[in-house]
């Protein structure tokens, strides 16, 4: 037992070191001094209060999408449609706000309605993917991907069409909302305490749901062995469908918060890759919700910090992605190698 723990740790550290080694080589190939580049990422993430705030702003939606995919992964599903679900959340929230922008309602109520609309939008989009899978036999990966593209098109259509700014529509999005309808932020920053609190609550909720409830346990049973779960009396397809709905609701919530807390308008590409990133975080933490917060924070820091690379070294900020992807890839490969190693010994 003891020895195995060391072996496991060895493979994990090995994966990490190898990932760093490869990214270092990539940096060299791109003509950047590796050590300085890493340091500038670090300072870009934590160098100033402003930077830390920027990390927190990224952390919040990432936590939400991670929370969502933890649910679908638990049910044995690959919800690649997160991006689209988030986008639909943003669209619904924007729609709701536009509807009541000039109504004589208290702003707080409109904000709450907006958030609820976001949740609804995400859930509907996820339900579509779920229904395609359950009733149409369309693999959730392809259904989800297709719906992602459709969601993007829908945003662009709205931004350039019915919801375009007075004058001409542009990629910079719809007309910003009245300031009264913004999620309140910390003075002098763009950080909304509300969004932070909600995200942390949601990931805590998912942790509890998967760890401590009958629902979570049954969901896991469906994901790991749906035949046995069925024989034990779990209504299997209903649980899969519900997992989709819940995941979509979280994604929609993230989309709604992007609109109301950060951009205050609908933008093309509002999901910003958070859905895919959430999948990566979930894979890296081996689907253990407990680790979601710190690892999502690390990923958020990488994303924020690598913006510096772009400014200083004229490198593309996709470097953060490269590092994250390679890390997950090597951890997966390391896990395979570990199992082989243990089997051989």
């Amino acid at each position, binding site marked *: 037992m003891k020895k195995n723990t060391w072996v496991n740790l060895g493979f994990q550290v090995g994966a990490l070191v190898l990932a760093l080694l490869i990214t270092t080589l990539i940096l060299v190939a791109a003509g950047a001094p590796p050590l300085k580049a890493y340091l500038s990422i670090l300072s870009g993430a934590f160098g100033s209060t402003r930077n830390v705030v920027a990390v927190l702003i990224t952390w919040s939606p990432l936590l939400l999408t991670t929370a969502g995919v933890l649910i679908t992964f638990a049910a044995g599903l*690959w919800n690649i449609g997160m991006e689209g679900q988030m986008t639909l959340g943003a669209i619904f929230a924007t729609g709701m706000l536009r509807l009541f922008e000039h109504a004589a309602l208290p702003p707080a109520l409109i904000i709450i309605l907006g958030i609820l609309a976001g949740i609804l939008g995400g859930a509907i989009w996820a339900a579509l993917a779920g229904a395609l899978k359950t009733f149409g*036999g369309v693999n959730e990966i392809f259904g989800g991907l297709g719906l992602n593209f*459709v969601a993007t098109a829908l945003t662009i259509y709205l931004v350039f069409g019915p919801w375009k700014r007075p004058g001409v529509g542009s990629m910079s999005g719809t007309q910003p909302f009245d300031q009264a309808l913004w999620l309140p932020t910390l003075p002098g920053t763009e950080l909304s305490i509300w969004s932070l609190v909600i995200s942390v609550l949601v990931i805590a909720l998912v942790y509890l749901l998967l760890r401590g409830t009958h629902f979570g346990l049954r969901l896991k049973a469906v994901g790991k062995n749906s035949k046995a779960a069925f024989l034990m009396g779990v209504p299997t397809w209903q649980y899969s469908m519900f997992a989709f709905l819940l995941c979509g609701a979280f994604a929609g919530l993230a989309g709604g918060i992007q609109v109301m807390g950060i951009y205050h308008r609908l933008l093309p590409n509002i999901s910003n890759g958070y859905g895919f990133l959430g*999948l990566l975080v979930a894979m890296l933490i081996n689907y253990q919700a407990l680790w979601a917060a710190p690892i999502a924070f690390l990923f958020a820091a990488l994303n924020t910090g690598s913006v510096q690379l772009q400014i200083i070294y004229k490198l593309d900020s*996709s470097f953060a*992605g490269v590092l994250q992807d390679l890390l997950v890839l090597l951890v*997966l*490969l390391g896990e395979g190698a570990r*199992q082989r190693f243990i089997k051989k010994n």
Partner: protein
Amino acid sequence: MELNTLLVGLAGVLAAAAPVLFAVIGETITERAGIINLSLNGTVLLAAMGGFTIAYKTGSVPLGFLAGMLIGAIVALVIAFSSITLKQSQVAVGFVLALACRDLAYFLGVPVLNQSGPRLPGWSIPVLKDIPVIGTLFFKQDLITYLSYLIIFLAWLWIFHTRPGLMLRGIGERPAAAFVRGANVNRMRYIYTIIGGAIAGLAGPAYSLSVKAGWMGTQSGLDGIGWIALSITIFGGWNPLRAAFGAYLFAFLQWLGLVLQSKLPGIPTQVLQVAPFPLMILTLLLVNISDAEWVSRMLAAMPERTRRALMKLLRALRASPPASLGVPFESE
């Protein structure tokens, strides 16, 4: 529209379909052996960037194509190694690779971003080009487009009309049965995954050195093509001819979107460009729906003649994957 404009437009469709075709044919071969290469979207982007960079640096277009194939083969090797040797989930590894290669392409592509570089020159085939209609349509293209026609038929011939191709089908269908007939299943799976990856890798340079020469990063208009190719593979029922039909249909619809653009100014370009995606979902639905339980229940309740007709239709649309797609094989 004048006939000649139409012909030139359609010839453009044939050329524009080449990258999708390579990706689809490569994936079809890989999946025939029972392995899913889900990294396609990343592979194509990285190969496009890599191929253009090499051609730009060396001034040699053929080297650019070679680089694309090599990149495709290497990514495929990682998939094969992780799924066959390390027994990891093909979906997980493929998905991460799809993201990794994409990010890598954007990161490493900065030096050649928006640079003008070499491209594959057009080359009309003598004699054939003078055939009315057909000449303009098919034979006033460039070499890679001709290769794309060829690869459809080569792949089709190989899979359905050669002995090793028969074994390939067997390996994806029922590896244990192929094994008792003397095949080294896992070695063949490695080989076909790598070959399929190399062919899919051609899709990159086919774009960045021919269809739309150059590397424009996120503005290349290439992102997403790999995912489309994956669904066209399903639509194509793992048959190169039907898959080619899907690829051409896709390119045609995109072209149609551009043409309609001028007629419908109210709709932004991007919207028409994604028109194929809902269509893709719809086709996947049609291809798969006959397997759903409620469909058979509904069919059973219908009057005999309607039922017969509907079942016939569904069966024609239906495409069943190689039975062991994604399932690892161990001989003991």
